[in-house]
């Protein structure tokens, strides 16, 4: 493991101070939430020295609030905590499913959604799920908090919109209207312990007649960043989310994908499977919204 210094600030201001100090001196500081990506990197990928800034002591980063208008999930909240929150599961079953796909039970005791997002892997499972439900990043900075839609947060493979001196303190999710539900599916060759070859998150709203009035579709692992596919959403809106609509949405996802061929799958395979996942996730979301 590479050498590092460790600090655990207890206030957001203190954390920002540490980041600012490092930025001004040209020294490297890195946020630690669950550490499930960071520790692996420190061990094997990039062992250069740095200061680790642990945000698990920050009250704000540990807050989970299911409010009247919106839900807030702090950046240090472990997946295991979310998985056991029945209110959240009711509201955002797709997001919790996505979080539950990452890591084993032991890893989920540490892993965080915010960490998955900041790590900015093209295959991060919670990212399409967050985009589908319209989640917004709450970013702490010296000049106060700023907000940014999740689909605008990830800027490339392993890069995000955080500026020097900033950190992600939590995620804000608008409360879903009535008869709204989300779902997330990914494809892996095994049942566990794997990374998405493709992923699709869908959130949709039905009216009393069962017609889709709003939808958001996001796909992962088929482009440098997770994509918001409005053409797929458009294919669902105004329909009863029947087989034709599902096939159209699937085709839109396949068309929007710009995957690569690598050890995990070919371009053709990923294009096809991301459509299949969109179709299946949309059908699950539809059934949930009707329930």
């Amino acid at each position, binding site marked *: 493991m590479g050498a590092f210094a460790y600090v655990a600030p207890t206030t957001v201001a203190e954390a920002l101070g540490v980041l600012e100090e490092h930025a001004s001196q040209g020294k490297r500081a890195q946020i630690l939430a669950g550490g499930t990506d960071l520790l692996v990197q420190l061990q094997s990928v990039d*062992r250069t020295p740095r200061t680790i800034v642990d945000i698990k002591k920050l009250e704000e980063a540990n807050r989970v609030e299911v409010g009247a208008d919106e839900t807030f999930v702090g950046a240090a909240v472990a997946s295991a905590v979310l998985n056991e929150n029945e209110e959240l599961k009711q509201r955002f079953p797709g997001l919790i499913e996505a979080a539950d796909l990452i890591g084993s039970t032991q890893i989920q005791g540490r892993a965080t959604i915010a960490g998955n997002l900041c790590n900015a892997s093209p295959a991060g499972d919670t990212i399409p799920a967050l985009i589908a439900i319209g989640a917004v990043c709450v970013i702490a900075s010296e000049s106060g908090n700023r907000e940014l839609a999740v689909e605008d947060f990830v800027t490339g493979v392993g890069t995000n919109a955080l500026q020097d001196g900033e950190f992600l303190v939590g995620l804000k999710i608008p409360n879903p209207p009535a008869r709204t539900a989300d779902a997330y599916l990914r494809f892996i*060759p*095994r*049942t566990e*312990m794997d990374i998405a*070859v493709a992923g699709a998150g869908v959130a949709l709203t039905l009216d009393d007649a069962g017609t889709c009035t709003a939808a958001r579709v996001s796909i992962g692992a088929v482009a440098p960043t997770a994509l918001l596919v409005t053409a797929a959403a458009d294919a669902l809106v105004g329909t009863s989310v029947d087989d034709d609509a599902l096939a159209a949405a699937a085709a839109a996802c396949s068309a929007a994908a710009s995957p690569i061929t690598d050890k995990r799958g070919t371009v053709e395979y990923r294009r096809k*499977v991301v459509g299949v996942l969109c179709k299946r996730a949309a059908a699950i979301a539809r059934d949930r919204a009707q329930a």
Partner: protein
Amino acid sequence: MAEAVDYKVVGTRPIRPDGVDKVTGRAQYGADLNLPNMLYGKVLRSPHAHAKIKSVDVSKALAMDGVYAAVSGADFPTAAHGDIGGEGGGDVADVAKNVMARDKVLYHGHAVAAVAATSQSIADAALAAIDVEYDVLTPVLDVDEAMADDAPLLDENCFTANLPEKPDKPSNIAAVMQLARGNVEEGFEAADVIVEGDYNIPMAHQGYIEPHACTATINEAGQATVWCCTQGHFEFRSMTAKLLGMEIADLKFIASEIGGGFGGKTVVYLEPLAVLLSKQSGRPVKMMMTREDVFRATGPTSGTHCKVKVGAKKDGTLTAATAWLAYEAGAFAGAPMGPGAMCVFAPYELENFHIEAFDVLVNKPKVAAYRAPGAPQAAHAIEVALDDLARQLDMDPIDLRLKNAVSEGTQASYGPKFPRIGFKECLEAAKAHPNYTKPLPEGAGRGVAAGFWFNVGMQSSAEVHINENGSVIVVEGNPDIGGSRASMCIMAAETLGVEYDSVRALVGDTESTGFSNVTGGSRTTFATGMAVIEACEDIIAQCKARAAATWGVDEDQVEWEDGQAVPAPGVNADVKPLSLADIAASAHKTGGPLLGRASLNAQGAGASFAVNICDLQVDAETGKVDVLGFTAVQDAGRAIHPDYVEGQMQGGASQGLGWALNEEYIFDKNGVMENAGFLDYRIPVASDLPMIDCEIVEVPNPSHPYGVRGVGETPIVAPLAAAANAVRDATGVRVNDLPLSPPRLLDAIDSAE
């Protein structure tokens, strides 16, 4: 079927003696030993798959603070040619060059230098300071490419062996092998149906969970001790001595507990380096591979290209078969093409056949043994072809195999006549198994395949010590990989007539017990078991002698029954039987402690056959396979400890299914393995597999006192084809190449539509 024999301990399922320490983390594995002043040794590995080494300069590394030793190929003695010995086998000079490259690197990850330093991070920095100049050559990356006439050569002195005449030019084909009988052309003419197939399987790794690790220390007198995880510490001692030019008696090897080997821990990688680094530094040196090292630089099994052609009459009688089997050896000769050629048609009666096999050099890691080396790839080819044949004949696949199955007296395709074997019994048991006729869910498929492995005997030693209270210590020389200590305790208890709980078994180091070949070839329960039984019989003979002396009768007037000496029938002696505990308690008065021993070269290892039934379904939109059920039927001869026989069957099925479905070495065009980790080298995880149902068939091996046949390797032979045949059944699409990964299956399904 099995004779009814009334055993008291054989066939029971007691808890293994090493179990508690393993589940509580107390057990000491290869990397667990730490010594005072110990250094960490690390290896610099080649970034090229094929290159000439122009120079290696370790001087900057040696000059660093905290670095105590640095070695490269020039620091090793030139090893003479000759057989290295052991299951991994091969030429001494090749093993030497595999452990540390000399003039050439032959695969990405090939060791080119090693350092020892006070910390792992200093060792890493020292590796970065080593200068190596390469002259990069074009890599040869698959078996077909390597066999082509104009292929770049790995070894300009490689002239194909086993040809009638030495070829006039070198090639990458290190050796060929042929087996033939009858007249193949006439056989095919007599056939009503002929099937042919062409099958490719990429390189695959054993995937043992414990990476290779060792600690070595050598004193000023040149006496070294090495602790390591190994399948055979005696053979590691011999290999290390040969590679370093040391006297065997100056090397002591202690086998740690071992976290899996499957054949992969039968050859040395780190041990000679650690000894040399310890010699240069004067300190103990520990070396541990990372998982990435294990994938890139230890021996996986061969990638293969096989072609098979089989002809049959309408009633299913096979008339002729041919096999063309090309095995990747990796960087040095020694692919398991021989066993592959000998196994491919072994289960079947064949008048006419021709088998041709090739041992081919490629710029990939040198292959090592992997459970039934060479057999799974060859069996995949013939068992898939037989499945196609059964479909064409509209015949039940088990019936087709029964029609042609070998039995006692059949001349095996590889030469000898079979003694008593249990193939037909396995086929009948599979056919009668409820899982074979259980209805399948909609869209699912069922596949059947058979497997065969010879098993081996080889040398084993054992001692049996009787403690002063009559409890028993068994000392053997075979590392316990699959529960063999428990099996040794069972066989000792059965033979002596004592309780299992009064027997303990331990694995002695190279200085505390006699020579024993590797734990491999499914030989330990068979051969070392025989040595333990003989050592117990030695004890019994001594006990009888002491009882005779105590009673004042002749030795032949004493018998051993249910763990005690009794007067023979008709002997007029009014004496109380003497138990082992009685004799032990008075041993100081009758001649001293009781020690039994045996050493042997076991003959008559019984072949083990298996039949597997695989149920699975395929997601037609993603190509993903879900294994729904798997039934393994196998002849164990006699299951000494049925739990560990089932464990072998389930483990082999799991590895075979992984190989069939997702496991493969993926190389880029430069010969760099792209998936050197368990994330992308996909062995199955627990949730990928159903409970694997086992049925142990017992057709006793006449050459073993309890009828044991080796069981460790046969279980991996049939699953590849069983899965492939189930995919064919589920989808209607025949996919000849492995793995049956989602992209390959989806492509095949889409292409068929």
